[in-house]
């Protein structure tokens, strides 16, 4: 049971590291909670506290327009002791969610879907990390740690997505859809992962003895997803009482992006500058832009559904409204599954430096703008552009590597030859 012992060691070390950070730097969680890179209006723990206060005071949590998260989080957090007076239980709860996410990653990795699926088999199958290493990459990623310490509610969306994927790779389509329903209920955008996830489930199912019919399978899964989301929304209605108030405060807020607080995404600056009369149009453009990748990537990578999900998560990390480093950490969590693609990537150094550069300079420029007053909004915006550039390069490089991998599979004689643009 060497592997298990390694897993325990990694998980334990991750837990202890988080605990030590919380205990030795008691102000660190609150500092991170206030950072715009970590906390956006839709996942901020501070706002959750506000909603929780209103909720426990029997006032609608959406009164006051501060809280924009799903209402089912409220009874959950109401069970935990007050995070202000005794922060440790809440923190430990978040640590455990992180470990669960890592566990889901181990399962995904163990399935081997990233290297060998029904329709595709990678050339460099042997170049691979095992599940524990992948989990370690996730657990010791500074972005993940920061998200976890900041108690951002994005971690629950991350759990939903990772559990959906881990169930899908196991062919457990019902659980996958329920988990995706949970993630979509929390943050809306994971619903875009529906098509690749269904393909993943379908591929796993059709490997079995009785492959289901494609059309009816998709309809079934869609109905399941809708039912799970409807069920969660129904529960939320029981909690908040007013359907439209909660819908407009949560999903309306996600869709219409009324809060233009700076974050690492690309939307806030654009919509600050946008003429009011074109605001609706460009909201549509931005959302469609985000959604349009689903069709293209799915058509291109039909044979590798898990890779579609990975690259879509990368797209979301760059182009989604209210993006934070937690979205990037989810993308980075799935990337190590594609260890076999790393030798094919060409710009890892450039992408890595851009991401490092922006993660170091971002807080500095934000400080210059907001606190020191010696910079302006363009400073921080420029850094978020570099951040998005770094992620885009990484994403594009990964996609390129995957394509190259497919090509080499079709043309085994060409392995190792140089790429030329014609």
């Amino acid at each position, binding site marked *: 049971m060497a592997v298990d012992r390694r897993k325990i060691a990694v998980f334990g070390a991750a837990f202890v590291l988080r605990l030590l950070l919380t205990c030795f730097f008691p102000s660190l969680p609150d500092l991170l909670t206030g950072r715009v890179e970590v906390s956006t209006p839709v996942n901020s723990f501070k706002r959750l506290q506000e909603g929780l206060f209103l909720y426990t005071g029997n006032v609608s949590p959406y009164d006051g327009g501060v809280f924009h998260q799903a209402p089912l989080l409220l009874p959950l957090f109401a069970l935990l002791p007050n995070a202000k007076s005794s922060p440790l239980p809440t923190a430990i709860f978040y640590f455990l969610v992180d470990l669960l996410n890592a566990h889901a990653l181990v399962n995904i990795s163990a399935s081997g879907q990233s290297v060998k699926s029904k329709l595709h088999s990678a050339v460099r199958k042997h170049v691979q990390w095992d599940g524990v290493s992948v989990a370690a990459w996730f657990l010791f990623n500074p972005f993940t740690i920061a998200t976890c310490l900041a108690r951002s509610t994005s971690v629950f969306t991350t759990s939903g997505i990772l559990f959906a994927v881990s169930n899908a790779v196991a062919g457990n389509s019902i659980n996958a859809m329920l988990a995706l329903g949970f993630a979509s209920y929390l943050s809306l955008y994971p619903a875009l992962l529906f098509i690749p996830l269904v393909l993943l489930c379908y591929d796993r199912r059709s490997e079995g003895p009785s492959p289901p019919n494609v059309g009816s399978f998709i309809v079934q899964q869609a109905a399941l997803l809708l039912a799970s989301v409807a069920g969660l929304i129904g529960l939320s209605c029981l909690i908040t009482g007013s359907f439209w108030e909660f819908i407009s405060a949560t999903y309306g807020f996600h869709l219409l992006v009324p809060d233009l607080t700076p974050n690492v995404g690309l939307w806030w600056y654009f919509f600050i500058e946008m003429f009011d009369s074109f605001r609706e149009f460009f909201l549509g453009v931005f959302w469609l832009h985000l959604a*349009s990748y689903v069709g293209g990537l799915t058509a291109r990578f039909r044979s590798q559904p898990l890779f579609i999900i990975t690259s879509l998560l990368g797209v979301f990390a760059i182009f989604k409204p209210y993006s934070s480093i937690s979205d990037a950490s989810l993308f980075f969590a799935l990337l190590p599954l594609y260890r076999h693609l790393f030798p094919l990537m060409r710009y890892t150094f450039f992408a890595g430096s851009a991401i490092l550069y922006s993660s170091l300079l971002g807080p500095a420029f934000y400080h210059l703008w907001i606190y020191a007053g010696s910079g302006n909004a363009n400073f921080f915006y420029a850094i978020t552009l570099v951040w998005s550039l770094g992620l*885009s390069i990484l*994403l594009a490089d990964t996609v390129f590597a995957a394509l190259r991998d497919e090509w080499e599979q079709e*043309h085994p004689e060409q392995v190792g030859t140089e790429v030329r643009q014609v």
Partner: protein
Amino acid sequence: MMTKTGDQESPASASQVDQPSVKRAPPPETPAAVQTRFRVIAAFWAVIIFLGFPIWWKTTSIYRASLPIEEMVDWADGKACRPVFPLEIHLATPSMQSFEAQHLLRTTQHTLDDLNEFAAHHLRLKLTNGSTTAHNSEDSSESVKYPAETADTALTVRLLPQDGLAGPWSELHAATTQLDIFYPPSQVPVPSSSNSPLSAFIAAELQRLYGEEKATIAHILSGNTAGLDSTSPQLAEDIDRRLRRSMKYAETYHLSFSLFTPGSEPSSWDIEAAVNEYVSPLLQALSPISNFTVDTQVQLYANFAPTAPKPEYDESEAAWTLKKEDLSAFVNAAEWPLNPSIGNGPTINFILYVPDPSQSPLLVNENRASSWMIPQWGGVFLLNPPLSNTEQGGRSNPAHLSQDSLGPAFMTFSHQLLTLLGTPSTPASLPLRLQTSIRIRAATLLLSASATMGSLARLTESLPSIPIPATVATSVSTTLSHLSASCVYLREGRFGAALASARVAETEAERSFFEKSMVGQVYFPDEHKVAVYLPLLGPIGVPLVVGLLKELKRIAGRRKAKGTAS
């Protein structure tokens, strides 16, 4: 924008990567790769066509409700309505024979018509018997508020014979709309004569009463007083000055009564009683014209502005005096809390200033006056209450101002209020002046709402890109219907109703003109849209369009190849 990085190259890169050398041709694409590429391009274009275009259409189309442009322009040009002011004047002749009265009426009307040179404003005489006269005169102020189906009675003239008079003389009741004319019985016109001294006197008297009103209305309708030859330059200047001094018309005025004093006393005043006594009746009478709210405040330790000239002691008058030219600096606008506006509508400020005992009494140097008016802003009254000796040997103001001591100040304030609202200074009867005020306001609002309609019509014509919400169309139609109603009421002589309609028309016209959603795009010409769309959509669009063209070319080429093959 770093859009479309990965997937744009995806269809192409599958076929274009991996060539060992330029000389060696790339391996041929498999049919599966070609189909995949087609699917990818189709997926992107499906999103654009089925979602993108509807969203573009929905979010950028400009809703323009249709407006009755021609009708609006007609109103603005004065073609739709020529405001007329037929004033109905009742002639009560309790001691005359019916035929004598008829004759007197005819000759007087004739004389009036001869005298009148401004056709829009004319006086119509009508006979009433004595019994209804009394009723009418009582009712006249009421009829303003509750417009009946019949025309408002502007004035009741009572002809009373009086022995021992050389010629007729008249007496105007100050509190009612009644003019008594006393005449020697011998002057009753005989039916054979075409004119008589009595009818000439009545006509001249009426002409005199309505002279100022006529000049004012002529001034408003034509924009200057030149239209009327008989208007004396003096009167024209008066009207001009009054119109300049009075506030712009508003639906609601806020009256703010403030007590300012540089010391600690007086610290209270019987303001409620004073307002009820002196201001409320006036506001009641003015209610058909505008709505009023009343606010009051007491401000202690209110000092003059440091730059303001100090009062000087005048030995001969034994009083402190302010120079007339320094009065404009009297109000310390920077420090005295005089809100420029309380809610919607302008504020009219009335300041009661009680000077420091060391500077009491305080007067205006030139004319010994204790009050003055600030045009379009309000009025100031210097109240010098009797001083009492304190135990320390000094003198102090009374701690409380009683209603009686406030009396003169509030009489002045009500007079200032009337002037600020543009009420004419003649004739002496207040109900008559209020009626005049109603007619003047009706004319002003009619013109102003019509002009607003014209401006709105021109604006929508000249800027085809501004949206016109349905609410604006509704407001415009409300305005137009109330304008025509107002015009009809004017023709019928029902001025109260005309003013009520004109007020609605004005409010709606302003609302439609200042609609917020219209203003947003006023300064946004069509050519700027290129600058809005291109920076983002250009980079996204180029690869998509090129991909589509290549694909179409390939399909067309294959068709052709098939055609030649078969």
